[in-house]
């Protein structure tokens, strides 16, 4: 399975859009945080986990999904949210804590929910896995052809929920795909230090399900492997586990000095966006003019989202008490 030109362009533009979005978020995040970096200050407080470098995982998988499919993401959700089609304006507003945000400012960057496209995420490691299995089981129960995908980091593969959810997915033969974004680090702990096997696809056998490893942070390979697993799930043939090698180009969160990272390691990482651009230019799927246009369009959408978010009103304090219950 290879992306069609249209899919290629969507994948590329979505990666660009995600990157620009995060650049804008990062810039806004630093506002009010100098000379002293204090997370509490500025228009975007709290932790901020960027996904630069990991965009291939999001687009390679989400290229096979539509709004009805259910996705759970992690504390590092932007690239996936954007690829899943989450409303960009409302997401930006949420990250800025505004009343117009997806959740009226209640959730913020680690709690992006867009029910219209069945997207959610969580700040707790591996928490989304159970819900993905459950949503998939519901689809199966109702004979719908929808699937669920749960994105997690490689660090999450050592959390108990990983085991319980995969076992459940397997015995229920739920149409769910678990995608591990292996960026080699869980905060400051290297994968080899935390994980008893070099590759987590090996763990699929513990649940009698197919496991795949995709090397090279390569959108094309991700597209192919994810496409097959999702098609399999959609056809009622059961769950799969995919581990994707990817890169954390920024630190764990903004402000992470990454002193724990071996010298040179980070510098050796390649940025997947220029890489894909070169590839598509080479394949003739993209030309510089189209690239400019796609990029400009992405930039315009992001800039609109950010400026609307900035301009929007904050919620009033009383709204904190709403939506605790439905």
């Amino acid at each position, binding site marked *: 399975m290879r992306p069609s030109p249209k899919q290629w362009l969507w994948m590329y533009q979505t990666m660009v859009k995600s990157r620009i979005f995060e650049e804008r978020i990062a810039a806004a995040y630093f506002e009010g945080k100098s000379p002293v970096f204090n997370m509490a200050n500025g228009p975007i407080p709290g932790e901020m986990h960027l996904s630069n470098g990991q965009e291939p995982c999001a687009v390679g998988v989400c290229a096979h999904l539509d709004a009805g499919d*259910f996705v*759970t993401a992690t504390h590092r959700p932007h690239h996936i949210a954007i690829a899943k089609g989450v409303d960009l304006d409302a997401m930006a507003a949420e990250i800025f804590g505004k009343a117009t*945000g*997806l*959740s*009226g400012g*209640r*959730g913020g960057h680690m*709690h992006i*929910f*867009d*029910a219209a496209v*069945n997207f*959610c995420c*969580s700040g*707790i490691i591996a*928490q989304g*896995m*159970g*819900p*993905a*299995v*459950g*949503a*998939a*089981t*519901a*689809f199966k*129960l109702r004979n719908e052809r929808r699937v*669920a995908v749960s994105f997690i980091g490689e660090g999450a593969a050592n959390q*108990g*929920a990983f*085991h*319980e*959810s995969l*076992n*459940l997915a397997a*015995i*229920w033969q739920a149409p769910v795909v678990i995608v591990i974004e292996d960026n080699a680090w869980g905060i400051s702990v290297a994968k080899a230090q935390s994980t008893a096997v070099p590759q987590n696809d090996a763990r699929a056998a513990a649940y009698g399900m197919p496991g795949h490893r995709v090397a090279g942070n390569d959108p094309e390979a991700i597209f192919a492997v994810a496409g097959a697993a999702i098609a399999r799930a959609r056809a009622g043939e059961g769950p799969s586990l995919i581990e994707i090698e990817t890169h954390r180009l920024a630190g764990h969160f903004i402000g992470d000095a990454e002193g724990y990272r071996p010298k040179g390691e980070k510098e050796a990482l390649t940025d997947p966006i220029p890489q894909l651009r070169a590839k598509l230019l080479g394949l003739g799927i993209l030309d510089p003019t189209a690239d400019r246009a796609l990029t400009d369009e992405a930039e315009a959408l992001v800039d609109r989202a950010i400026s609307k978010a900035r301009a929007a009103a904050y919620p009033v304090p009383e709204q904190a008490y*709403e*939506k*605790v*219950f*439905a």
Partner: protein
Amino acid sequence: MTATATILPNRTRRNLTIAKAMAEAIAQEMRRDDSVLVLGEDIAALGGVFGNTRGLLDEFGPARVRDTPISETGFIGAAVGMAAVGLRPVVELMFVDFFGVCMDAIYNLAAKNCYFSGGQSPVPLVLMTSVGGGYGDAGQHSQCLYGTFAHLPGMKVVVPSNAHDAKGLMIRAIRDDNPVIFMFHKALQGMGWLGTVQGSITDVPEDAYEIPFGQAAICRAGNDICIVSLGAGVHLALDAAQSLGEEGIAAEVVDLRTLVPLDRATIIASTAKTGRLLVVDEDYQSFGVSGEIIASVVESGVALKAPPRRIAFPDIPIPFSPALEHPALPSAAKIVATARQIVRAGR
């Protein structure tokens, strides 16, 4: 005698145990609404260790009545995902004591997704779980943990004391668009092998009916002291009230029925009327239900004739030996003695 007495309908009585009332409520809702399903350990062929899902597998089949592996985090998490896409799972956590292996899925996921999503993704989920000791099952199978759940926002907490309430509260819980923790007390469940407090077996109407959340029941009226309790404690309080009545002390007994929402108005009114308050709670004493009720009353500023008191489980793990466990539990005798002291102190 119990809450039901006030609403006894004009028809032949039909006495049920709480277990049967719960199973009936679930079955009725499953018939009415295709989206209701049941998950948990041993809830299918076995019908639930505590009998509250008996008969459901036969009627609704294994797709809607699903035995799970011993994977509480997995299946409660899955239930939240089911709820997110339109199902209404009723999930069993066999003993509340096991909450420790899956609390994240309960308090940080089920209870918060509605808020985190700004109301986009409500979580209609019932988590039913057995509570209580007194039968020698020791410290990992006898806790109540009422306060543990009631303290954390985003979930409603229900504790029925009798079959009538259990049915109406279960139906209300299934229809509620929010996570409801339905805590049923083993001593009231009507499983012969656990013994059964007779007062929990009550007349239960056949039809589906709801009991609203946040409305405590006044099970017995009295002017001398307000005794507030929940679950099995209600029956101890009623027994004590009976004895107290014989010595001329008229105790009012309030059955909370739900902890979240908490019917502070009824507690405060009853305390205001009587001027005296005694809380009976089988959960650990400190930082829990008993403290909250006392604080809620005194911060309201009602005039008290004597300091409020509480009888709760002491701040110790629940011991196995009946020689240790029984004296540590609340009892009618303790309630009588303490109520008497309060009434004497506050003359």
